[in-house]
């Protein structure tokens, strides 16, 4: 049945030549696992588009509702945490794959003539992807989103002459608020996707016009010529499948973070950007005062200037890495620099004590239920019930949760009332109790 339908369609639309054009592209040197990075990046982009569209079903891009709607997705919608997790981890995976893709193209000298334009379009794709990361970061409207975006926009403000105007344009006015959120949302979900799709189409169009680069060894490249289908498609599919499984496992087990609701009056919050901006965040620390502009403007400009110029910098048409010592050394130094900065930043940020937002919520519930009317914590509250100052050392999660639901079942004769809370609230209150430990003081 299926066969007859596909045969019918194929005949009407005269598909064989189209399929031949799509699938039988010659790969010099044959299929290889080293060529999977571009395909996996494309797969990840499609996955981001899909999960993003579904996130938009429940998301509200206004400061009044953004945080609550994300929390709603995260906690109340079936599979909500999973879909958001896929989108969150998919973004990180995309950065990794793009990094590996660029590295491979650089190592193989695949950007050299006639593929210079592909490299440059790729550069635009890199900028667009980073813009996706920057604009998407604000959308949950939590503390981290708000303050990291505040910093990001202020960096743009250091651009000479037009910095002030640029920050106003980014924010949609004088301060970060409703207009900022709605324009970041529009850029993230409407403007950037179309630009990226057009750029990907151009990237692939150029690939098909100039052909795949193949191995750097000319003899190897000429020895075998294998069509794109089936072996390369198979390798790409396996890589996509493995990437998908990794993301599913991550999304199911490590939920995307959601800090407290954005609070513009709270200046104690210390924003740390997403890991793919972390090396740059660290680098910024070494430039102070007058020199800040070097790191915020001059060096990024220089970096992208060099990036786009790379295909035109080498004088010789030489793809073998050992015969391109300058490129390899400079590329290697750049990697060492990035990873050193990243390492330093991770080391520093790891020492910041991250407050668990659930603990703060638990504390608020403790106050709301007027628990201090009976219990004492660190000298505050009445001494009717047990002192809870070091409750975390005495009890575990199961005991606490059972106790909140039915105190008399665990402490017969107790006149503690049962606490009527939702599961999420109960979890927060328990987390707060568990945080009350001697060593934490």
């Amino acid at each position: 049945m299926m066969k007859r339908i596909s045969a019918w369609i194929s005949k009407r639309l005269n598909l064989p030549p189209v399929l031949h054009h799509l699938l039988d592209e010659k790969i010099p040197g044959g299929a290889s696992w080293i060529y999977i990075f571009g395909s996996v990046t494309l797969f990840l982009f499609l996955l981001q588009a899909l999960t993003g569209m579904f996130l938009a079903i429940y998301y509200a891009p206004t400061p009044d509702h953004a945080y609550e709607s994300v929390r709603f997705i995260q906690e109340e919608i079936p599979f909500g945490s999973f879909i958001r997790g896929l989108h969150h981890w998919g973004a990180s995976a995309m950065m990794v794959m793009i990094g590996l893709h660029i590295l491979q193209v650089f190592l193989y000298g695949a950007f050299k003539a006639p593929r210079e334009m592909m490299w440059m379009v790729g550069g635009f794709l890199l900028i667009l992807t980073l813009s996706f990361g920057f604009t998407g970061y604000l959308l949950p409207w939590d503390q981290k989103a708000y303050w990291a975006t505040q910093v990001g926009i202020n960096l743009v403000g250091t651009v000479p002459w037009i910095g002030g105007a640029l920050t106003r344009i980014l924010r949609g006015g004088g301060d970060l608020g409703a207009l900022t959120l709605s324009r970041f949302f529009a850029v993230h979900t409407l403007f950037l996707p179309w630009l990226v799709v057009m750029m990907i189409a151009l990237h692939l169009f150029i690939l098909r016009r100039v052909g795949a680069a193949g191995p750097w060894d000319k003899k190897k490249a000429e020895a075998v010529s294998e069509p794109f289908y089936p072996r390369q498609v198979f390798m790409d599919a396996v890589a996509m499948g493995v990437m998908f499984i990794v993301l599913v496992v991550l999304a199911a087990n490590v939920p995307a973070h959601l800090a407290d609701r954005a609070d513009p009056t709270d200046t104690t919050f210390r924003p740390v950007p997403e890991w793919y901006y972390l090396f740059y965040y660290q680098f910024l620390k070494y430039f102070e005062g007058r020199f800040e502009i070097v790191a915020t403007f001059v060096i990024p400009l220089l970096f992208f200037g060099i990036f786009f110029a790379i295909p035109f910098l080498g004088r010789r048409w030489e793809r073998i890495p050992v015969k391109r010592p300058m490129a390899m050394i400079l590329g290697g130094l750049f990697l060492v620099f990035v990873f050193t900065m990243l390492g330093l930043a991770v080391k520093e940020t790891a020492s910041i004590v991250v407050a668990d937002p659930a603990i703060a919520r638990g504390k608020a519930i403790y106050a709301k239920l007027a628990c201090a009317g009976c219990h004492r914590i660190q000298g505050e509250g009445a001494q009717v019930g047990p002192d809870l100052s070091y409750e975390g050392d005495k009890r575990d999660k199961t005991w606490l949760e059972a106790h909140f639901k039915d105190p008399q079942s665990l402490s017969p004769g107790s006149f503690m009332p049962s606490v009527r809370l939702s599961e999420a609230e109960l979890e927060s209150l328990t987390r707060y109790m568990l945080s009350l430990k001697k060593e934490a003081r």
Partner: protein
Amino acid sequence: MPEEVTRRSFFGKAIAAIAGSIALILSVPILGYTILPALRKREEPWSEVGPVTQLEMNQPKELEVVRSVSSGWMKAASVRSIWAFRKPEGEVVVYSPICTHLGCGYHWDDQKKKFLCPCHNSSFDLNGQVLGGPAPRPLDALPAKVEGDRLYVVYKEFKSGISRKEEI
């Protein structure tokens, strides 16, 4: 007759299997994410109306119910009216304020001792039974209870114009 498995057809099938599995694995959470919340029935809470002492014997009174309505992640207060009175046995009767004919609001006529609907002249007695007019069924009673001296009701709406009492 089974087809011969060639190298080419193996790759084709493997690619289809991987793509198919990804689509299948994704479709379960995505469908659940999109469809399940839409099918979820709203749970209407008991709303406090006020002291039960304000109700008189066999004398329906229009009362206001302020209920907390949730729409997605948002919660808002919504005011609705109800008709309520006490029976001699002490039982409290609460009616939905909507005429069962076409959804107009009716009122209690104290002279005629009837509930009258002005739109199409339906009339009901104290027990909600239809006395006249096009109303297809008795007035819709709402769940009510008294705790202490407070009256609680569950506000519900029902489809108009049909003889069965069917919740919206």
